[in-house]
């Protein structure tokens, strides 16, 4: 996925990033709860130039049947990118990257969803990345949480997510595509603000032990910003004027 040689100025002398943001600033985030007619719950997120749609079905019968669990419901997540979502056309078949991301998002959501209330059923989360611009897994996870809540599925908390990272030896919040490609480190974080639990965490890039701690801290603070927007999205749909 390209080299890490900085050919552009990722952080100028005034602490301004390549897209004009400050180090601790997220991109523009817009989350909308609902929107799909047939899904039991849905959400749409624009996170910078990322555009992601999530639909949730269930709890419903499990097919194939052998996947069902008599003790608990199961969560299934598919993260999928459209062929037109990236610069060069992407093969529509699920890549190894997409399979891995599906798995980490599933495991990030599982602690939040009270699956044990619905034995022998499945909750399916379908994530479709319509346009990608760095940080899709975090945006997708944030939207998936809203979609699950919109489906009325009992949850302990919502998972909010954003990446922290390092460019020009500085820890930053919300890594965009350029910063991911040319920067020094990318650390996606998913966090449940009420339970104070990190449920998604990955890192690539080199960090000193001090930077590592700072990245986690900056990421967790960022997640709290996203969490407020998730709540607002649900509020707008169910208590605001924009309800369907």
């Amino acid at each position, binding site marked *: 996925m390209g*080299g890490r040689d900085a050919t552009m100025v990722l952080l100028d002398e005034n602490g301004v990033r390549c897209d004009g943001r400050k180090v601790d600033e997220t991109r523009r985030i817009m989350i909308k709860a609902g929107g799909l007619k047939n899904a039991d719950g849905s959400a749409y997120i624009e996170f910078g130039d990322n555009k992601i749609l999530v639909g949730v079905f269930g709890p419903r019968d499990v097919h194939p049947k052998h996947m069902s669990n008599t003790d608990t419901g199961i969560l299934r997540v598919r993260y999928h990118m459209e062929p037109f979502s990236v610069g060069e056309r992407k093969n529509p078949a699920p890549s190894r990257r997409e*399979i891995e991301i599906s798995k980490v998002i599933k*495991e990030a959501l599982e602690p939040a969803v009270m699956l044990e209330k619905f034995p022998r059923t499945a909750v399916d989360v379908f994530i479709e990345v319509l346009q990608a611009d760095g940080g899709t897994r975090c945006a997708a996870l944030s939207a998936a949480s809203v979609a699950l809540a919109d489906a009325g599925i009992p949850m302990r908390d919502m998972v909010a997510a954003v990446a922290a990272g390092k460019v020009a030896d500085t820890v930053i919040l919300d890594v965009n595509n350029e910063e991911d490609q040319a920067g020094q480190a990318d*650390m996606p974080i998913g966090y449940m603000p009420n339970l104070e639990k990190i449920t*998604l*965490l990955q*890192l690539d890039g080199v960090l000193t032990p001090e930077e590592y701690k700072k990245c986690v801290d900056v990421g967790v603070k960022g997640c709290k910003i996203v969490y407020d927007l998730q709540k607002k999205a649900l509020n707008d749909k169910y208590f605001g004027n924009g309800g369907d």
Partner: protein
Amino acid sequence: MTSTSVIDELKKSQILELLEQGKRIDGRALDESREISIETNAIPKANGSARVRLGETEVICGVKIQPDRPFPDTGDKGLFICTAELLPLSHPTVETGPPQPPVIELARVVDRGIRESHMIDVSQLVIEKDKSVIGVFADNVVVDYDGNLFDACSYAATAALLTSKTPKWNWVDEKPTLAEGEETDLPISTIPVSVTMGKIGNHIIVDPNGDEWESMDARVTITSDSDGNICALQKGGSDGFSQDEINQCGEIAVRVGAKIREKLKAAQTGSQ
């Protein structure tokens, strides 16, 4: 890896009960990894290889080095690719066929740990810029399973790479041509060490064995480099970590990793 395998509920509660007393089912300290044995040059036909046992988990890694075409956007860099596969003989629940998500995750996490540490200086693996580069392929096969494949595969690949000899190719008549008898070590810049920690209840344990693996609520794999910096991380499993736990895991990974790095270095020296 073997999410379908069954562990006795009794064993699970025994593991947790022991942890409440600060003990582990196999007598190890919480931050103690199992015994690691590393046999290098196990596969002489490979350019480098290692057979690693981590407790009773056993992995063989073979490194193949051969000319390849560079990626279009990185014509000035060689290739490094690391894979991992579970052989059907490694566990009764492993089936043949396309890899399942846990195995795909395993391969990608092992690859990422080594890649992000910049262990192999791929800029030195260019035969002719934009046309031909050297590809380094480290393929792991799991032959016996007892938990924690992430670290076993990572150590096997690292040991195999540390002891690999790369042939030399010259660019002659628009194609790479082998220069006979000119073998060198790979350009190594650091030694990455991955340390996987499991969370059971509120306890963090290093290098979970097979039974502990089945009992874990969550896990985290952290790779550190020779400078004690952290270069890759992957959280997995159906629970979360507190911020304090994640910080603590970072410290454990660097500390335990430093000890394991010495073993990898010894395996490298021993093979020469």
